[in-house]
């Protein structure tokens, strides 16, 4: 696959006078585990929101697998294979873990419209749900109601729901937020393993530098809506501008 998976051309977005995205040009290759970092207010969330479809762009283009998706509604992008998880846990609280994952799987299998067959009878759907749960390590909690899960398990579920939609490109928005070290290690292992399988390209928005540098093959640094660094972890660690932004901010704070 030589064409980039995702191409962002001159993407811009402003909220009043605050420019959150300033003519961003970027392209993401398939199979390269990428991290997007940047200080608070750098525009990371805005970028993810625009790419996934929850925020309209002011100008610019987004091309996914060569197709212009700039104005497509959210569900359409998901069906094409562009998905995201959320920073704040965004699951179906009163449904079981199993049902939480079953919803996107039904969508993928195009069985969601069925009116009169019991959902229990959708055998291949149920099998796939089981596989997803095993992959994220929640198989044991399948019948637990989502709101009863521990925070770490809820974050796993969060990723699981996103994965269940069989995305080719998956944006994880701060997947380890609020986790303890054990949970963090577990989820990172999972992501690493899944990335290695090659079916999904992961792009992770993160604050935690350890996570970023241990996982990523490529790091993109955002600051005030602009890309100020883009390369391997080595290159970024040695990038003077990046160091200024990060260290400079810390000293000033």
């Amino acid at each position, binding site marked *: 696959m030589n064409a980039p998976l995702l191409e962002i051309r001159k993407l811009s977005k402003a909220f009043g006078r605050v420019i959150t995205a300033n003519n961003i040009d970027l392209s993401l290759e398939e199979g390269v585990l990428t991290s997007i970092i940047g200080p608070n207010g750098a525009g990371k969330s805005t970028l993810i929101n625009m790419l996934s479809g929850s925020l309209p762009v002011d100008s610019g283009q987004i091309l996914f697998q060569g197709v212009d998706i700039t104005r497509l509604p959210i569900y359409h992008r998901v069906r094409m294979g562009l998905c995201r998880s959320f920073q704040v846990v965004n*699951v179906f609280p009163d449904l079981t873990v199993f049902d939480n994952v079953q919803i996107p799987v039904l969508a993928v299998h195009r069985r969601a419209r069925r*009116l009169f*067959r019991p959902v229990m009878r959708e055998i291949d759907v149920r099998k796939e749900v089981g596989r997803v749960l095993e992959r994220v390590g929640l198989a044991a909690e399948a019948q637990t109601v989502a709101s009863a899960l521990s925070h770490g398990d809820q974050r796993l579920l969060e990723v699981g729901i996103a994965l269940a939609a069989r995305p080719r490109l998956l944006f994880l928005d701060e997947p380890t937020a609020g986790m303890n070290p054990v949970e963090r290690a577990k989820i990172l292992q999972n992501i690493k393993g899944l990335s290695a399988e090659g079916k999904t390209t992961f792009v992770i928005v993160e604050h935690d530098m350890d996570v970023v540098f241990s996982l990523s093959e490529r790091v993109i640094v955002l600051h005030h809506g602009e890309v100020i660094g883009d390369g391997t972890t080595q290159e970024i660690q040695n990038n003077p501008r990046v160091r200024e932004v990060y260290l400079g901010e810390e000293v000033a704070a």
Partner: protein
Amino acid sequence: MNRAWTYIAIAIVLAGLVAIGLFAGRFVVYLSMRVLILSIFALGYNLLLGRTGLLSFGHAAFYAGGAYGLGLLSIHVTTNPLLGIIAGVALACIMALIIGFFCVRHTEIYFAMLTLAFGMMVFSLIWNLRDVTGGDDGLVGIARAPISLGIATIPISKTSHYYFFVLFCFLLTVVLVYLIRRSPFGLILSGIRENDRRVEFAGLSVKNYRLAAFAISGSFAGLAGALGALLESYTNPFSAHWSHSAEPILVSLIGGIQTFAGPIVGSVIFIGLREVIERFTQNWMLWFGLILLAIIMGLRGGVVGGVAQLFGRERGEASASGGAR
């Protein structure tokens, strides 16, 4: 063990319903039909409220659509009740699709207000188009002609005969709603109630599912309306008024909006209680206000929810069967 008790309970209820038709006096039969018709209205409505989490204050408009659809067909074209019911349900469905199209792009308060507005629009249309709908006089003289099925003709003009037809429609509704609740579509509706944004991110057009739920519940409302028109042999514009829209809401709440049987139990309680209260006092609204208050402040699971808790069914357990119960 639980399963067996459920089947036994269903069997008893069924036997009771049949017994009413065979042995009870005319008034009890009439009242039972009112309960069954309200149950149809509420079961369909609860797919929208309890399942999808959308509060519509305008569903009475679709009930009226069913009633007037059947009424107009009956008076001007043919008194065949089956065709009348089909006409009523079709009209209600079309109305629900049109009105729903405008309403489902909004949520929560705006959705509720929009449905209220459209519902009252239908009410004022019915009220004002005297030449077509009879205005505040309604349509009178809707005949209950026999149902001709080619091989046999079933008379339904006698109250007790019509009862069995209504019972049949009720059972059909119960089966359909049950199947819908257990289906993938039903699960998606639950998802929309819990977290509509996430459903969108699962790759589904939430608007379309809401519209479908709206139209389906509107169609059941139309069925109830058509049956109601045949029962009373008359329609009336207040069947489209927002105070009538409140009935399926009240009834579902009383019975328990997250349960399947809730709307049915609620209908029994609502109509039964109203009859009892009206024996003693004119002021049944007062008592209903108090009951509604009690339910909202305390017993939010409704009657069925409360009973289910008594028997120890956990929420998770209920969810395990694919969110069916």
